[in-house]
């Protein structure tokens, strides 16, 4: 028997397990997946928890619900990968051998990387909504918030779901308007980028959207520390912004396991061939999802598109064929903008997000870089698609390669 080992049973790992389990000959292959936790969170749903739209149970399911019967499942922290020996060491000393390995250990928030962040005010006036605990604590805090400065700050690049902080301030704007205290809440969006978003066309559109909603954008602000006494964030060039509630995207980093394995860059992202999804160091190691150092968004949609490419390539590698498929960096993100509306961006390594429409057979078209109700339904539909199609590794009616159909060149 040969061993296929998958590390990480989040969005990408679970999806690949389901896809490959169907394809592989069970007489020949044993398929094993390892994760440290038993709960699968629908992370895009965290965004809605502070506003009471989703509750904990809406975003939580046992990981077991998504594993095909017959796959071997191990719950344990992973200590390290030794690529030269084709071995994975689990915490506690257990050793797993593999013929092929898929790394899907994602990215995690690291509040302790920023001085003063995880301090006295953590989960009192300072919150991240990138974890279930942070999102729930913020929901509680918002309930008795009477007004003041709400500051949304991005600590470092890259971070997963690059549009989430923009969505967050838009939803906050709508939420406080609905509660009748919008005039008492100043919302500030603080970013280390030079505008609301990186790519020029989307940055302009999203910048205008925030301006329309009277949300102040502070660009080029690189967070140095949080002053808990005076409730201020301070940048490296010594600018200060006062807050009553600070919501933060902490520094994101890949698992320390990657660092211990010597496979990562300085943020613990696995050095990966951006076209083939193969590790730069070992031919029998492939990487998918947020764990890879690909120059595209860290998002579930990217993992989905990459999944089809990875499937073709790993099957070829198992048969000793040349890798046939090339990933183009395709990302497709709904942006929730409040008041039941949403925008959609679609891009890849080369093409930046452009305005136009996105042709989704049977359901679309969705307006690209436009604020429409249809896009909002796309986001809501996404939760259903996530649980029932994406994680289960089923086909979606969207091509892996980005299409220029419907896009307007600008």
């Amino acid at each position, binding site marked *: 028997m040969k061993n296929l080992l998958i590390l990480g049973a989040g969005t990408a790992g679970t999806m690949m397990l389901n896809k490959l389990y169907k394809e592989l000959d069970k007489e020949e292959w044993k398929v094993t997946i390892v994760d440290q936790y038993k709960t699968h969170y629908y992370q895009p749903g965290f965004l809605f928890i502070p506003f009471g739209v989703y509750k904990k149970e809406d975003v939580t399911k046992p990981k077991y619900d998504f594993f095909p019967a017959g796959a071997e499942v191990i719950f344990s922290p992973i200590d390290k990968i030794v690529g030269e020996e084709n071995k994975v060491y689990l915490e506690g000393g257990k050793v797993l051998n593999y013929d092929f390995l898929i790394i899907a250990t994602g990215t995690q928030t690291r509040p302790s990387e920023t001085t003063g962040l995880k301090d006295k005010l953590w989960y009192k006036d300072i919150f991240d909504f990138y974890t279930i605990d942070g999102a729930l604590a913020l929901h509680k805090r918002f309930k008795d918030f009477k007004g003041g400065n709400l500051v949304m700050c991005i600590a470092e690049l890259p*971070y997963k779901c690059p549009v989430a902080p923009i969505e967050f301030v838009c939803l906050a704007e709508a939420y406080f308007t609905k509660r009748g205290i919008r005039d008492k809440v100043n919302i500030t969006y603080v970013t280390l980028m*030079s505008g609301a978003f*990186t790519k020029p066309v989307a940055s302009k559109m999203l910048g205008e959207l925030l301006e329309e909603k009277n949300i102040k954008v502070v660009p*080029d602000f690189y967070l140095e520390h949080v002053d808990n006494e005076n409730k201020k964030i301070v940048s*490296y*060039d010594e600018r200060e912004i006062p807050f009553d509630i600070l919501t933060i995207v902490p520094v994101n980093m890949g698992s320390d396991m990657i660092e211990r394995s010597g496979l990562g860059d*300085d943020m613990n992202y696995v050095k990966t061939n951006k076209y083939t999804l193969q590790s730069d160091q070992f031919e029998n190691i492939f990487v998918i999802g947020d764990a890879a150092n690909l120059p595209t968004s*860290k998002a579930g949609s990217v993992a989905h598109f990459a999944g089809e490419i990875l499937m073709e390539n790993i099957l070829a590698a198992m048969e000793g064929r040349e890798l046939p498929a090339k990933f183009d960096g395709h990302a497709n993100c709904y942006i929730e903008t409040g008041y039941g509306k949403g925008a959609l961006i679609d891009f890849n390594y080369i093409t930046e997000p452009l305005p136009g429409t996105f042709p989704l057979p049977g359901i679309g078209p969705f307006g690209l870089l436009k604020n429409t109700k249809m896009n909002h339904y796309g986001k809501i539909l996404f939760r259903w698609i996530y649980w029932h199609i994406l994680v289960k590794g089923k086909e979606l009616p969207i091509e892996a390669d980005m299409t220029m159909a419907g896009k307007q060149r600008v």
Partner: protein
Amino acid sequence: MAVKTIANAQVQVTDDGYLEDMNQWNEDIAKEIAKELGIELTDKHFEVINYLREKTKAGEGLTIRKVGKSGVVDIKELYKLFPKGPLKFSSKIAGIPKPTSCI
């Protein structure tokens, strides 16, 4: 793309003034670009610039965080050396491509 004369040398630059080819760079060009940005270059500036050029030659991406961990300067110093554009201005002066943040 356009051709520009900087410090008596003809160089190719992008729309926002970054050198197209890092091999067309020399120290005089660096000084003149720095002057346009209101920066007077010291030895410390050149230490940073040389580090940026080395890493770029080796095909490595650069972030402020990475420069801050390089042992050449810390992030605070980097901001003092290149006010308002710790990575953008230093890259421009170093003759390397404009930094891209990939998200």
